[in-house]
Structure formats: C-alpha cells, structure tokens
C-alpha cells in the first residue's frame, strides 16, 4: 500500500513531512509520498483554465440554496481559481460544494493510482460544505473521505463549533462594536484558530481517519478519546486529538497492530 499526501494552499504551520512520518509510524509497512500541490503534479498548463472553471462553478452562494448542477462562473471567479491552481495566491474564504470538489480532485489523481493500493490524502485550505436533506441546508465539513480524501485546514477551524459561551459573547461584542480579537483572546486554547501551532498534531488524526476509511470503510469511532472520533465541537476535537490519554481505542489500535505484524 502507498499513501500519497497533497498540499493545496495550506498554511505554512502545517508540516506535511511530520504527518507523513506519523502515517508511516502508525501503518508500518507503507510507502508515503508527499507530492505538494496536486495541480502542479498532474495538470498540464493547457488544462488549468478548465479546472479553474470547474472549481469556480461549484461555489455555494447561500447555505440554504442547494447546488444541483454546475453554475455559470464569472470571468473574475475563473481568474481567481487559476491563480489558486498555479499557487500564485493562498487567499481563501470561498465556500465550495464538498462532494463536487472531491470529484474534481479525483480527476487529477493519476488514473493508474485510483485503486485500493493507494490512499490519497489531500490537505487544502479551501472551505467546503455538504448538503443535508434533513434540514435543507449546507453544513461546513472538515473532511470528505474517498478518492482522494480531502481535509480542510479551514474547515477544521470553522466547522466544529466553538464553546457555546463564545457565540453568546460574540453576539454581545458585535452589538457593542467591540473587537472580536479580544474575545478570541478570552477563549484562547479552547478552539483551533488560524496560525495555530497545534494544527499539524491535530491533522495527524484526520490523516488517520482517511487511512481507516481506506482500510475498513469507516473513518470514525464512537470513542471520544480516539483520534478517529468525529468531533462536532472544538473541545471534543482538542480532546480526541491532543488531550486523550491514548491515541486510538483498543479496537483501532488492534487494526494498526495487525498492519505492523501482518
């Protein structure tokens, strides 16, 4: 088996080599390759505009407005996506449809590598969401697993909810025109933020969720102390990835042991 890691506009505090070493350490007999920008690896220059157009077509305009087919992008949107693909900008903040985005990334995974022999894990700073038919709205996501598994460094910060008191106070701060940075300072450490030194350590767990999706078809675990726990709150996330006394629950530890001995 081979694990391939990609880095699509992620922040500089994310150390891909550390994540690669961690995956090797946990999986044992596995080759891990760090490929960097997925577009630079497998997209010829003359296809950049096509991919830019495709990505610009899957922007979510309103969280209650489901994207059913690709939309018509504007020239400026395509130009922006071109610059992102070519690595000329790292700016982010646009919301994309998660499954559509994954399908676009799948197209740039080399055809011969789209098999069970390869685990493709793509870290991106793009923010994405998936539609929920239950409440008829989009929900921000940290990850969508598949080929490739896409993990959002922005989603990690924005998707799992911050402490409840944070939102109540935020409302007050906004009403009074107070500086939100002051509020962030009050809650420092209780959620993952931009330029957070804990990012790499936390994302090791998400890389392993992608690995488990590949191995057993389920990336998640019910155990709140296991790195595979599907955290919906930042405090749960921090506990599962950094605070728990163990990295993996007994059941998942066993799967990893089997990989080493098998």
């Amino acid at each position, binding site marked *: 088996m081979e694990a391939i890691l990609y880095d699509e506009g992620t922040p500089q505090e994310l150390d891909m080599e550390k994540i690669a070493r961690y995956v090797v350490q946990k999986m044992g007999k596995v080759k891990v390759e760090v490929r960097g920008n997925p577009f630079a690896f497998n997209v010829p220059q003359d296809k950049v505009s096509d991919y830019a157009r495709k990505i610009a077509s899957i*922007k979510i*305009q*309103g969280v209650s407005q489901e994207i059913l087919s690709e939309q*018509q992008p*504007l*020239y*400026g*949107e395509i*130009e*922006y996506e071109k*610059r992102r693909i070519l690595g000329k*900008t790292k*700016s*982010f*903040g*646009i*919301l994309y449809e998660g499954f559509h985005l994954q399908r676009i990334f799948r197209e740039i995974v080399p055809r011969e590598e789209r098999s069970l022999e390869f685990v493709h894990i793509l870290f991106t700073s793009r923010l994405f969401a998936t539609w929920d038919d239950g409440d008829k709205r989009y929900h921000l996501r940290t990850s969508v697993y598949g080929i490739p598994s896409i993990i959002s460094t922005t989603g990690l910060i924005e998707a799992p909810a911050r402490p409840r008191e944070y939102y109540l106070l935020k409302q007050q701060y906004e009403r009074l*025109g107070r*500086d*939100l*940075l*002051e509020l962030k300072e009050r809650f420092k450490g209780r959620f993952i933020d*931009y330029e957070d030194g804990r990012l790499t350590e936390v994302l090791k767990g998400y890389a392993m969720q992608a690995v488990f999706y590949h191995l057993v078809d389920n990336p998640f675990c019910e155990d709140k102390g296991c790195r595979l726990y599907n955290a919906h709150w930042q405090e749960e996330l921090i506990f599962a990835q950094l605070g728990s006394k163990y990295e993996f629950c007994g059941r998942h530890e066993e799967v990893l042991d089997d990989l080493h001995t098998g």
Partner: protein
Amino acid sequence: MEKFSPVGEKDVTRAIVTEFAKQFVEYVESDCIIIGAGPSGLMAGRNLAKAGKKVLIVERNNYLGGGFWIGGYLMNKVTVRHPAERVLDELGIPYKEVSAGLLVADGPHACSKLIASACDSGVKFANMTAFDDLVLKEDGRVCGAVINWTPISALPREITCVDPVAIESEIMIDATGHDAQVVKKLEERGLIKTKGFGAMWVERSEDLIIEHTNEVHPGLIVSGMAVATTYGLPRMGPTFGAMLLSGEVAAELVLEKLK
C-alpha cells in the same frame, strides 16, 4: 481689515456657470469614469490621475468619501488591517496600532486627506450626480455612463421630465459599494449574473476582495465592496484596508488596459 473685492451677484453666477460648463465640456470624454467616490473610487481615481490620466468621478451625494468618514455603528474611527497602513502612510494619515495588525485612524482626518490627495492629483468630480445607465458599444463593451442630477430621481416621474445626458470614457470603474450599481445595469440586460454578498467574515473577505478586483465585463472594472456583491464574497464589516488596496489594483488594471 482688508475689504473684499467689489463683485456683483451676476459675476459670482457667471464664474460658477462658466467654470462648471468648461469642466463639464472637457470631461464629457475622459480616460476613465469612476462611479462612486468612496474610498476605493477615490483611491483608484487618485492613482490614475497621478499617472497622468483624465479621470472623472461621479458621486450621487453632495459629499465625497462614502462611508470612509465613519467606522462601524456611527462611530468616526476607521480601522484598517495590515498591510493597508502603507496607504495611510502614503497619504499622511495619522493612526495607531490597537492590536497586532489592526490600525485605527480618525475618520474625518483619513477621509479628508484621501479626498484632498485625489483632488491634488487632478481628479475631477461630478457630485450630486446620479449614475442612471450605461453606454454600451455594439460589441457590448462599456464605454460610458448616462447621468442625471441626483434630485431628479427624488421627484415623481409624473411631474419631472428631465432627460439624462451621457458621458464617455475608454474604461469605467464600478466603485458604488454594496449596491454595485453599474454591474447591476449589466445584469438587467442579461449580460452578467451577480452573486450577492455573503455573510460577514472580516478575517477572510479583505484578501478575496483584492483577488477579485478585476475586469468583470469588457470596459468595466469592479472595485471595493462592489466586488463582494458581484462575486458573492463574504462581507467585510467596518474595516477599510481592502477598499483602499482594491482601488489601487483597479487603477493598475485600468492603466494596463489604457496602454
């Protein structure tokens, strides 16, 4: 005390009309028409005029500066985030850093300095003038604006019958803020589909505004908050750095197009 010159009412009127008419005739055709005299329009106009271009800014209000006089919630402190303090330094606007990368200046001081700098650079203004429509060439290219006095739009159609006039330019900038009035005129004709602005996300919106400042349709560049409306980008909140820098980018793009 030295006495004022003996000038009659008719002389005052004649001076106003003559000088206004002279400027109006001259600026019926210019290199660039900018709709909106907010921070991004003023910044774009200033830089273009500094580069020797003939620039007319159309503003529907009597006053220039748009929302730059006042920060959020009617409080007259304006904020910019790093790296936009470069523009404040350039304009000689005093400010202080209240936290890492967040600068605060006095709204009246900042706004008046920007207006003065635009005027000093040679920008001309048509204030109390409303943008009414676009002038489009046969190939759909934007090549001018249809304008009218602002008060005309406030009167009932039944009692006013004042036709607008048209002015022309090589290129135009939509700097009308959230309204994106010029882009909306293209939308009315089915030439473009705007996305409307998203929720406020101060941390990310400023970068995206700069990245999307661009020619949205042949002959029309969109700048400042109009960029957010056009592309459905997050709203910015009461911070002005991206307005100033977006104006700079718009000016660079216009200069490139005018080459």
